[in-house]
């Protein structure tokens, strides 16, 4: 079975103005694939299209050889795709523990939830200490941990991570990249959306560069490091 995620000729429009026009890409299993691009390039729109929050006007999205274009969000998530959304989007008035339980919302086996919970608490001992604290009262770095931990609770086959470094200190950014690499090493495909070009390319194996709603460059992370399009996408 091919567990790839494929975007095929995706068009997305808000109020008739095309935000994405003909985007095609592939996220392969057990690898980190990154999506680079400046603000407003359409990165978040592509993620919204993937999860059915803004269904594409044209084109199709295939995961695990199944067409998931425009399915209700919970069905797409049920295919084994987790999201660590931009801006963390933790549930502020829930405890850390409840936030993590939300990550495993579709899992019915209590035993399985407990073992995943143990794994996440081992990965983030800080969250174990603060399990009964309301997530909204935590620091930005801790909220980032909650968001990542919540995504892992889903035990996904593919995890989409949208702008994880946003608003974090350099030390925490490094920590984040270390964890992302570790997630991939455990056999999960990672689709990483980032602005932090150098560090992102350092851990990715493949990358795409989006500019004004189109893929302007793609290739192995190694080849993208020196690509002029990458420079142009960020610096005009």
């Amino acid at each position, binding site marked *: 079975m091919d567990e790839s995620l494929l975007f095929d000729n995706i068009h997305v429009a808000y109020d008739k103005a095309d935000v994405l026009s003909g985007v095609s890409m592939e996220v392969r299993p057990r690898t980190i694939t990154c999506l680079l691009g400046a603000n407003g390039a359409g990165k978040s729109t592509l993620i919204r299209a993937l999860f059915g929050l803004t269904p594409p006007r044209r084109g199709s999205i295939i995961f695990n050889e199944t067409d998931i274009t425009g399915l*209700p*969000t919970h069905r797409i998530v*049920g295919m084994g795709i987790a999201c660590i959304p931009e801006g963390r*989007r933790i*549930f502020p008035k*829930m405890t850390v523990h409840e936030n993590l*339980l*939300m990550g495993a*919302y579709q899992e019915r086996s209590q035993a399985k939830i407990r073992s995943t919970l143990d794994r996440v608490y081992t990965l983030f001992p800080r969250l174990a200490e603060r399990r009964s604290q309301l997530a909204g009262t935590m620091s930005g770095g801790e909220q980032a941990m909650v968001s990542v931990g*919540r995504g892992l609770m889903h035990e996904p086959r593919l995890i989409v991570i949208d702008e994880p470094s946003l608003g974090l200190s350099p030390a925490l950014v490094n920590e984040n990249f270390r964890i992302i690499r570790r997630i991939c090493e455990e056999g999960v495909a990672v689709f990483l959306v980032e602005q932090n070009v150098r560090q992102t390319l350092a851990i990715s194996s493949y990358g795409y560069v989006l500019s004004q709603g189109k893929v302007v460059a793609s290739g192995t992370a190694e080849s993208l490091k020196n690509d002029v399009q990458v420079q142009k996408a960020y610096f005009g």
Partner: protein
Amino acid sequence: MEMELLLQFCINGLMLGMMYALVAVGFTLFFGVLDVIVFSHGDTVMIGSFSGLSMYWWVNAYYPAMPAAGTAFLVVLAAVSVVVLLGMGVADAVIVPLRKAPALNTLLATMMLGTVLRESIRLFFPDGSNPHPFPGLLPDWSWRSSQLTLRFDNLALFCSGALIIALVHFIINRTRLGLAIRAVAQDEEAAKLMGVNFRLVVLATFAMGAGVAAFAGVMNGIYYNEITFGVGLLLGAIGFSAAVIGGLGNVFGAILGGFIFAFLQTIGAVAMPFAAAYKDVFAFGVVIALLAWRPTGLIAEPASKRV
């Protein structure tokens, strides 16, 4: 004024407060989860009363030998099932499709819906434009002294109401469904991304709010021994005010608001015995003053945090 009379007012106030709290819980649940004010909610309560009455008539006609407890159970069951179905229907046909529309449209649609419900009962229920006597349902045991009457049915209704509120609280805070409801209330999109079936959660929330309202409808009938097609208008206005006083979106606030409103009405009746008919005017007047003092409700978070 004698102590016993005052006590009597308190007991009546507590009964009314429980009834208002049950209605207000619906308003606050719907607002918390979907940010909508469902103005037909009061009329949903009225539909509960009439469904219960219909069941009572049916039982009387076909099974006159049914014991009182059985009849009471069937009446509540009929009221709750009809109103739960109605609530889910309203959610699916009106609230969810209007999700993307301006909030004003939902407001208007639910107000119209309330009118449709009211007029339907007036026109299509047998002799619907006149008040109907509502059966007592519960045995009329009571304890009397010179001025004080402690009715068994009041006590039973009050305890059932408290039990229902406790059940709602348990569902919201201790179950998987409750977790999903709170998630949708706090961040709808994030909840979807965690795999929550949004439509199902909305339907469940409306079923819950409507079921609680149906019980309030039966309670209202028993308390006043009479129901009319228009009873939902005032109950709706009171329930909505109660929810707003407490802070919309907050279940405890709604309960507090319900009791505060009943307390105000009672004060109005006690303090102005010469003008007891004005007790609602007094109560709503104080509500306006309370809102001027605390625009976001008594126990809600500051407006700046509700982004």
